[in-house]
């Protein structure tokens, strides 16, 4: 179907894709797995002719059904690509939010694929169905004689296009398609948007679909649905699928064959199960072991129950919602309902749930950042600290690492003069913490921009721990990191928890991460805590149907 031969791509600097060769067979699902920066997206975009102008193909060729699409040294043939894109090969992107035009109705956006290729498709149909061409000629003559006919034809064609769009929308599992057709992207949920993207990709039954991290931005349950949908389409339309992901579990569920990429090279290639059973390359082995799984070594980690550090009693959190009518009162919307739990000394309590379920709101309320609450939060330890999700934006880029680490100490000293430290003392503390989170002293004078994502998250954790709080709330601390880094950070949190005895409230949408790190877990949905219990207990005997769904 598709053959990529010795492909190398470079931007300004060195090659980001190096000598990559692979083939995708008819109806095959090929997975490309790798961490960010491994060149998997660039490979796909180059294949699709969508890579930015700055990229140069330095070597290699790409064939589609034995037809040459792209060759190094010759400029990209945009006209040829336009003929192929949408009709013979199409793409589903990662961010369904930004990948759809926000100011265009989704129906129109799907329809655009049809209108762009309408002329070409008709031509091929005419060639195949009417060999003599006489019928066509008479048709044109009629059109000339009766001007009204042309308009009628146009209207019929438009109607037919719309019909086809509606069919495509329902084929990807959307309901009430007449209404969806008229909606704008922001009026759809993430899952629905991705379905629209898929409808767009499959409407002309292309031979190849490239899906670049199509589920990464979605919640777990929606993720499952989208994976099932892709599988179904692959079986029904029998088109080839190139599935790009950083998530090995997903690749394992969906793909027939897998390529593993690292630093622009293919380091391993093979049948999915074979790779998972006995990976040959060291990198692949590392990747597989880094995936937070639910198998293996889970021993009973909890020691005895300490005293409660935070007690949350019947806590509900509200948001003000603006009234829609002129004289309507602004209403309070309940985001967290009747939460009731405690975090005990020295434990890691995992909080799992999908986006929008109230996890972050709950954690803010515990910290006292949200004032519109009913119920009670009692703290039995000194000020709890927080670790945020995005280590890129949560550290002040203009300060040095040392300054950032000392900051909580300064704040503490300002609040409570008895705890004030001299510069030398706080510096010593900061350096000690730097070592604790696994960084050398030389990082003290660096700026966050000189650090990798994982290193930055280490700094964030150090910042949270430097005042030795009893409790740290970590809100999705590993979600923005690559799998191997993720594993290291989880390891670090576990170690620090044991060394310092700090309790963690660990928030994540990823049930596997939660399993790896937590002593107890708490499952949340739509603002309610559905289930709370020992990790092993919940995983082995989930009580709530939603937990079962998450664990699937």
């Amino acid at each position, binding site marked *: 179907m598709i053959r990529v031969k010795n492909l190398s791509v470079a931007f300004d600097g060195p090659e980001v894709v190096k000598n990559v060769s692979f083939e995708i067979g008819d109806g095959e699902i090929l997975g490309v797995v790798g961490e960010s920066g491994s060149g998997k997206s660039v490979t796909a975009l180059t294949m699709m002719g*969508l890579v930015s102008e700055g990229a140069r193909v330095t070597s290699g060729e790409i064939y589609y059904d034995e037809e040459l699409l792209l060759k190094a040294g010759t400029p990209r043939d945009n006209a040829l690509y336009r003929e192929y894109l949408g009709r013979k090969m*199409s793409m589903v*992107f990662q961010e369904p939010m930004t990948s*759809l035009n926000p100011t*265009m109705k989704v129906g129109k956006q799907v329809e*655009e694929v049809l209108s*762009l290729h309408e002329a070409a498709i008709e031509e091929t149909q005419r060639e195949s169905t009417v060999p003599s061409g006489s019928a066509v000629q008479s048709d044109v003559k009629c059109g000339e004689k009766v001007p009204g006919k042309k308009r009628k034809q146009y209207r019929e064609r438009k109607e037919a296009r719309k019909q086809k769009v509606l069919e495509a929308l329902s084929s990807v599992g959307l309901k009430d398609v007449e209404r969806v057709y008229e909606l704008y992207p*922001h009026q759809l949920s993430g899952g629905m948007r991705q379905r629209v993207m898929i409808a767009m990709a499959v409407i002309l039954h292309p031979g190849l679909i490239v899906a670049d991290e199509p589920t990464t931005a979605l919640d777990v349950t929606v993720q499952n649905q989208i994976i099932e949908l892709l599988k179904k389409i692959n079986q029904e339309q029998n088109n080839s699928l190139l599935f790009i992901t950083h998530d090995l579990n997903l690749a394992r569920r969906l793909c027939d064959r897998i390529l593993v990429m690292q630093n622009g090279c293919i380091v391993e290639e093979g049948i999915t199960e074979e790779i998972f059973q006995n990976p040959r390359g060291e990198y692949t082995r590392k990747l597989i072991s880094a995936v937070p799984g639910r198998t293996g070594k889970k021993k009973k980690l909890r020691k005895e129950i300490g005293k409660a550090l935070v007690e949350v009693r019947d806590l509900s959190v509200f948001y003000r919602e603006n009234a829609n009518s002129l004289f309507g009162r602004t209403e309070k919307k309940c985001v967290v309902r009747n939460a009731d739990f405690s975090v005990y000394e020295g434990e890691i309590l995992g909080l799992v749930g999908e986006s929008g379920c109230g996890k972050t709101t709950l954690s803010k309320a515990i910290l006292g950042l949200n004032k519109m609450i009913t119920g009670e939060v009692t703290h039995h330890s000194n000020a709890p600290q927080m670790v945020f999700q995005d280590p890129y934006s949560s550290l002040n880029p203009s300060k040095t690492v040392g300054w950032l680490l000392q900051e909580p100490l300064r704040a503490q000293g300002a609040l409570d003069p008895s705890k004030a430290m001299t510069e030398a003392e706080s510096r010593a503390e900061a350096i000690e913490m730097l070592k604790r989170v696994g960084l050398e002293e030389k990082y003290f004078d660096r700026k966050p921009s000189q650090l990798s994502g994982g290193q930055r998250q280490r700094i964030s954790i150090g910042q949270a721990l430097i005042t030795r709080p009893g409790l740290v709330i970590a809100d999705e601390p590993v979600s923005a990191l690559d799998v191997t880094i993720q594993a290291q950070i989880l390891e670090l949190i576990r170690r620090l928890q044991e060394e310092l005895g700090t309790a963690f409230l660990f928030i994540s949408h990823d049930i596997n991460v939660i399993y790896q790190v937590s002593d107890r877990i708490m499952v949340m949905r739509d603002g309610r805590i559905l289930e709370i219990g020992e990790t092993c207990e919940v995983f082995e005997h989930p009580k709530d149907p939603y937990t079962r769904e998450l664990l699937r």
Partner: protein
Amino acid sequence: MKYLVKKLATLILTLFLVSVLAFLAFQIIPGDVVTSILGTEATPEQAQQLREELGLNKPPLVRYISWAGNVLKGNFGNSYRYSKNMNQMMPVSELIGDKLPVTLSLAFLSMIFIAVIAIPLGVFWARSKNRVLDVILNVGTQTAMAVPSFFLGVLVTYFFGILLRWFSPGRYVSYEKDFWGFVGYLIFPAISVAIPKIAMTARFLRNSMLTEMHADYVRTAYSKGATERQVAYGHVLRNAMMPVVTFLGMIIAEIVAGSIVVEQVFGLPGIGKLLISSISTRDFPVVEILILYITFVVIVVYFLVDVLYRVIDPRISTK
């Protein structure tokens, strides 16, 4: 509905505040209208008489209330300076009503030039990959923006009026006598008003388009097999218009308030010219109403921009 009521309330409140400020300003500004009308030779009795005639002997608050009451009733008062005939001063409404069509027509024509030229130019510029063209457009628009408007007016007069003889400079044709002659004359001041604004709008649109072209949905459009042109006009333009619309709104507000310099250069009896002359002669009733008019126009234009925003971007209305 709630939105409209809110906007209307803001409009009324702003007009009220501006009217108070405008009124107050003339209490503070030095200079006496009576001296300015009668000259320094007048006797104190004459001055006192005129003062009473104009109602200037009453306390400011009383004067403001009676003035505001009259304005609400649609009675804008009489000019201090312009007379209608021997024994009656010119009502402000007539005075302004006379000049308003000139300024509004000029504004309308300029806006047409701006919209028709700047938008295609901006799109074309954003799409062009020709380095030389880029430099030419860059320098050209920069120059057009930098040249002071009076000089531009002089250039336009020289080029179209004296070299090409397409119109007779200084021979303004009244719209009451010859409407098409009036439009023909207005084209040239409109060009002078429009040129710098076209340059600004085109630059602005180009930058906005270039930013927008990196958006994810643009890549999606290409992945459907759309041509560069289809992507630019079908997807990017509408999204790139968002900031440009605000900018156009500012321009409209500015032009409708009267292009003072251009009106002066081309001898147009418009609002801008009236404003200058009434300020210098302390013709308060005229100035106050003009200030209210400008405020009104600015707010209404911004309201329209806001509405247009909602039309362009469906995300706004639901938020």
